[in-house]
């Protein structure tokens, strides 16, 4: 009897559920994933440089150095070893017109007139080959301003400009 009444009330409420309006869940525990930092165009790499290997930007931002302001960019490369990362980086910059000035196994410097020196340091992670994330690359780059007023360029979780 009691359960029957409960069921009847439930059916009636369900039938009228649309007339009460619609709930608005916020989805705050699963926010949409931001566009990858270098895909936004907010703070791009020097003109024409793009990497063909999988990577994610971990941190970006400017720091004060003895040569004035410089941009520090930290990314991680995935699924490839340090040799391939080294080759991929050199290829990306030479393809964009940079000249290789120094090429050590885990570090390099390249230059291009009008852009200035760019250098990087590779730090392979001590992980097995079947781990996705394989190593870090730390870049020293010329600074760059935000290229657009898009609010996305102010979102630190997108730009990864959390400050150093």
């Amino acid at each position, binding site marked *: 009897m009691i359960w029957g009444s409960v069921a009847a009330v439930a059916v009636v409420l369900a039938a009228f559920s649309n007339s009460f309006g619609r709930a608005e869940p916020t*989805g705050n525990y699963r926010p949409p994933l931001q566009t990858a930092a270098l895909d936004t165009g907010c703070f791009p790499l020097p003109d024409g440089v793009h990497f063909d290997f999988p990577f994610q930007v971990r941190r970006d931002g400017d720091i004060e150095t003895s040569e004035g302001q410089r941009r520090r960019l930290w990314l991680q490369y995935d*699924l490839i070893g340090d040799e391939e990362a080294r080759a991929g980086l050199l290829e990306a910059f030479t393809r964009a017109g940079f000249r290789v000035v120094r090429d050590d196994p885990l570090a390099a410097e390249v230059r291009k007139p009008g852009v200035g020196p760019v250098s990087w340091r590779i730090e392979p992670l001590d992980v097995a080959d079947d781990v996705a994330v394989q190593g870090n690359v730390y870049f020293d780059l010329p600074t760059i301003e935000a290229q657009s007023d898009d609010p996305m360029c102010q979102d630190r979780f997108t730009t990864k400009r959390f400050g150093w």
Partner: protein
Amino acid sequence: MIDRLRSLRADQWLLWLLVAHVLLKLAIYPQVMHAELIGDETSYVNGGRALSNALRDLVALNPLDTAELSRNVVSSGWFMPGMMFLCAPLFVVVPDASVELIRAYLGGVSLLLSIGAVLAVRRTFGARYAVGLAIFPGLVPMWVSFSYAAWGDLTAGIVILWFLCLLVPVLRRVHAGRRPTWAEGAKLGLLAILVVYFRSSAAVLSVGLCLVLGVAVLFLLRGRERVLGFLAMVLAGGVFLMVLAPWSVTASKALDDRVLTTTTVQTVRANTFGDHYQLCFGPCDPTSTIWFTPVRYAREVSRVTGVGEVEMLGQMSAYARRDVTAQSFARDVFRNTRAYLFKPGGFAIHLQPPNAGKNLAYWVIAGSTTVMFYLALLGMLGMLLTVFRSSFENRWMALVLKLGIGALLTQPFVHIGGARYWTTIGPLMSLGCVLLVGEWLSRRRGQVEPLSDVPADAALPSATVARWVDRVQWLLIAGLIGVVAVLGVLAI
């Protein structure tokens, strides 16, 4: 006066204690009604909102908003949706329910569930146990505060009572030579998975006790009864998996990776025992929590590599746990246990009006909770260290409670501790205390059950079964002391 109190029968006590519980609930509601949803509560409530919309779509024959369901119900696969289903009816009727109404609704639902459970305990185990529950946790202010909250820990604790109200009688009957029926098997499986839907880590308890019952069926029954009884337990397993499957499939589809119950275990292990500064193969993004940033990172890596998000969480966790040693693990287990069992009032500061601070109400609630909880904790410890022998009823109850409490206390071995998890174990502590007092009284009065009989349909004489159950009890005591001792030595 004392004579009059004595003449009050246990049922009258129970009635008055339940009235006191309701009054306490009414007294505490103003304290928690304005408390904003805290942390994970928002996720459960959002899930409830999305499910209410799903019902609207079903009724109107519209296509389901799978994106909304995926984002709010599955989210990152952290929480199984038991509490979301419990919240949904409110949002069916009041889609934009205020926080006051949400808390009132949750308080009402938990009241119905807990009174139902106490009555089931009274029917199954007797009024003594029901009275015990009505006092602890029924009159513990913090437990009452939590009964207005959307986390599933407290509800899981209540559903565990229902589960035990079925499991223990079945176990007793197996001892008497009668197998669990098909209906009991199905119900056991259903209640076992229901517990998991409210608090996934309690799966150790519900699955573990079902396995123990399965073993008892194999040892204590003979012939056809044994085969049919075992098949009833297989049915329990089947029902368990059948009810689990919709969640596992939905979550796996939404996250495009394999999810069985929840995805949190790996990140939890890393944050608990590993170096969470290394969880993203280096530090994670700053300015967010240790739970959100690893998932964002896993999604970022997953996006560029095609490696599944959940698989990534596992790889990240392994990396962060590279330097875990026996010593660091043992120390962390102690730390977690401390947080799990020794800070029962830890949430009082949150479940109160915004910015209320540590005012009088706070101290009354946190203080009385702490005193009551520590007393029950002492009782539980005494129960865990006692071998119950005065009757078979006590033996089976003790065995089940010891295993159940042990199963819940595995949590500090895998999970960071917190001040709200005790609401799951609380009811078991209460049953344990009543059991202990009952055993003492029986022994003092010399009421010890004779063991000369062989129950009519039983395969084994009572004395043999008793000897084995007592051995298991000794083994559990040795195990408990052993685990604490080993951890202690490792931690030093």
